[in-house]
């Protein structure tokens, strides 16, 4: 095992990785921007080094500076987390050149899977179904128009170089096609420096199902069940769960087998995720491989009992998989809710600022992966994910009940968060019976019948009359506040 790992990330995932390192007895090096000096990942790590000012381009994306810290501190590995440099083969190359292990797939596999049409060809050649569409990206609008005609509308335009919904457009009507091509190319060019697009048939009412797989580079490959990540808004996942409520054993096996074939074909090593669309008839189509740890990995950990980050480190250190496919036993059902600094009541507009008070949930079946603490400041420069709640239960109903309880216990003051959306979804009949697809959020939110406050409105009113007093000083439990304040009011 490694002696010291540099964690090239921030927020909850940096804390998550530091925890795995600590469990393995591995020392940790944090890096941070000026916005994160007080962050949990800085305080939890054994060492911490400043990278630069808050913007990612001047801190968490600085390949040279990060590799420098790794070399200077004697770190023998770098864990990139997700986002930032995690799927950047140049970073993996730079680590290799510095003699530092990169906890992720080899750059060759990263490159083979990073260009999306190359990944589609790889899938096709490996016998994994792909959505009808182009196998070569192009910057020729005329080519795209011809292909759209051949496939038939609706189609999805996608950027060849990247993901995350950038440069992606669904085209339902021929008259929208030219404008959509222009817009998508512009977006792709500015986001990835590459305007190339390809297109695929649009699969309506699809489910986004992904399969976690691990490969040790010595022939050991296993898949660890699936996750349903259909609950997305503009291709940003909000809720994930495992197992998928619509996935039967046969489909699960087919998806798992397809994931293993993709891993083998790409020469994959370490943990990865194969994403698929599943249509209303249960047919599945390869989307892409995420060649890194996923945000939603904890639902798989809950169900399989396997620590994926510890496993990533073991594989990167050259250890073989400590289990075979037959040892992978799933138990119960797990759901994850992403608590992000976004206001679901105003189109999920990002929210930033000081969090003066926070209470995270606890108790049976609840795991919290979080970067929150009282006094934390949510910066504007990064992804708005603050914390993840993971509920595990014997079955889906128990997992849902526990998540609802956990959401109710959670308090994040100072910034708007996605909690009200989660509270809505976890009680919404279609979600509760597992009948949802990638169109769910657009169809259900904002809710036409907003949540009604409890019978406690009078209690809230009482507090409101007290809380508006500016001179009300912080205090501990003080049952006499009320009477004193009432007297003051009478004297006003």
């Amino acid at each position, binding site marked *: 095992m490694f002696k010291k790992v540099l964690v090239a990330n921030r927020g909850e995932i940096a804390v998550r990785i530091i925890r795995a390192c600590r469990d393995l007895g591995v020392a940790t090096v944090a890096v941070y921007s000026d916005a994160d000096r007080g962050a949990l990942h800085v305080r939890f790590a054994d060492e911490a080094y400043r990278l630069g000012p808050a913007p990612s381009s001047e801190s968490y994306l600085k390949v040279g500076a990060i590799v420098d810290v790794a070399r200077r501190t004697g770190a023998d590995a770098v864990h990139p987390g997700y986002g930032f440099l995690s799927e950047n083969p140049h970073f993996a190359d730079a680590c290799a050149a510095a003699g530092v292990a990169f906890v992720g797939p080899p750059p060759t596999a990263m490159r083979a899977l990073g260009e999306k049409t190359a990944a589609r060809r790889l899938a096709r050649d490996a016998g994994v179904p792909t959505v009808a569409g182009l196998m070569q990206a192009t910057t020729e609008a005329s080519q795209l128009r011809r292909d759209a005609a051949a496939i038939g509308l609706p189609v999805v335009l996608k950027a060849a170089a990247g993901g995350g919904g950038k440069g992606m457009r669904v085209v339902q009507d021929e008259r929208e096609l030219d404008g959509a091509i222009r817009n998508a190319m512009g977006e792709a060019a500015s986001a990835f420096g590459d305007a190339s697009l390809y297109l695929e048939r649009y699969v309506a009412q699809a489910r986004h199902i992904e399969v976690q797989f691990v490969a040790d580079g010595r022939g050991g490959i296993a898949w660890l069940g699936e996750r349903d990540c259909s609950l997305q808004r503009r291709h940003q996942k909000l809720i994930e769960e495992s197992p998928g409520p619509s996935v039967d054993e046969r489909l699960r096996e087919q998806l798992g087998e397809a994931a293993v074939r993709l891993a083998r074909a790409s020469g994959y090593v370490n943990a990865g995720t194969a994403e698929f669309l599943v249509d209303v008839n249960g047919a599945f189509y390869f989307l892409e491989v995420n060649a890194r740890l996923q945000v939603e990995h904890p639902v798989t950990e809950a169900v399989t009992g396997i620590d994926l980050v510890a496993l990533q480190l073991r594989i990167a250190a050259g250890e073989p998989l400590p289990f075979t496919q037959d040892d992978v036993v799933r138990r119960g059902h797990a759901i994850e809710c992403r608590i992000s600094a976004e206001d679901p009541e105003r189109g999920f507009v990002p929210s930033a600022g000081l969090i003066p008070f926070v209470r995270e949930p606890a108790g049976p079946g609840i795991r919290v992966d979080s970067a929150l603490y009282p006094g934390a400041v949510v910066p504007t420069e990064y992804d708005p994910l603050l914390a993840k709640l993971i509920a595990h239960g014997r079955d889906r109903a128990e997992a849902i009940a526990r998540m609802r309880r956990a959401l109710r216990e959670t308090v994040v003051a100072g910034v708007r968060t996605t909690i*009200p959306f989660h509270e809505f979804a976890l009680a919404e009949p279609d979600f509760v019976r597992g009948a949802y697809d990638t169109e769910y959020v657009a169809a259900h939110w904002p809710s036409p019948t907003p*949540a009604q406050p409890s019978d406690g409105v009078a209690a809230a009113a*009482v507090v409101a*009359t007290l*809380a508006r007093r500016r001179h009300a000083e912080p205090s501990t439990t003080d049952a006499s*506040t009320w009477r004193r304040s009432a007297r003051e009011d009478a004297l006003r």
Partner: protein
Amino acid sequence: MRYRCRIGARELELDVDADGGVRVDGAPLEADVARIGPLVWSVILAGRSHEIAVLEREPLRVRLDGRDVVVDVADERERAAIGRAGGDTRPYEVRAPMPGLIVAVHVREGEVVEAGGSVCTLEAMKMENELTVPRRGRVATLRAAAGAKVNGGDLLAVIAAE
């Protein structure tokens, strides 16, 4: 002291007398209020236990038994003042919720905006955000300009009663 409170769709009248007795819409309630911390309160009202955490001030937003609600409170003196002016005529400010780029402005000064209408579009954190108004009003002041970079908290518009 008498307060008028609006919480979601509910409106209620709260009478607080000098020894802490409470009447809600005229009905007396046993109230036991404890402050747990700077932002957290526990209120037991006729046996029902409620936990209230203050999330934001002005407008006051609280978490009440695991639900976020906005509480609008005015005491009788404030209400009298508003009443004289005819309804809630306090001007409303639209401010940038975070640093970003104004990519479009949808109103002109003097124009009337409907409740929920967008004043401008702010690109921030790689997303486009519509900045909307909570109630119908006239754009009294407009500071937002397309293409301008703004800081969080910057005033973009003031919406006044028509």
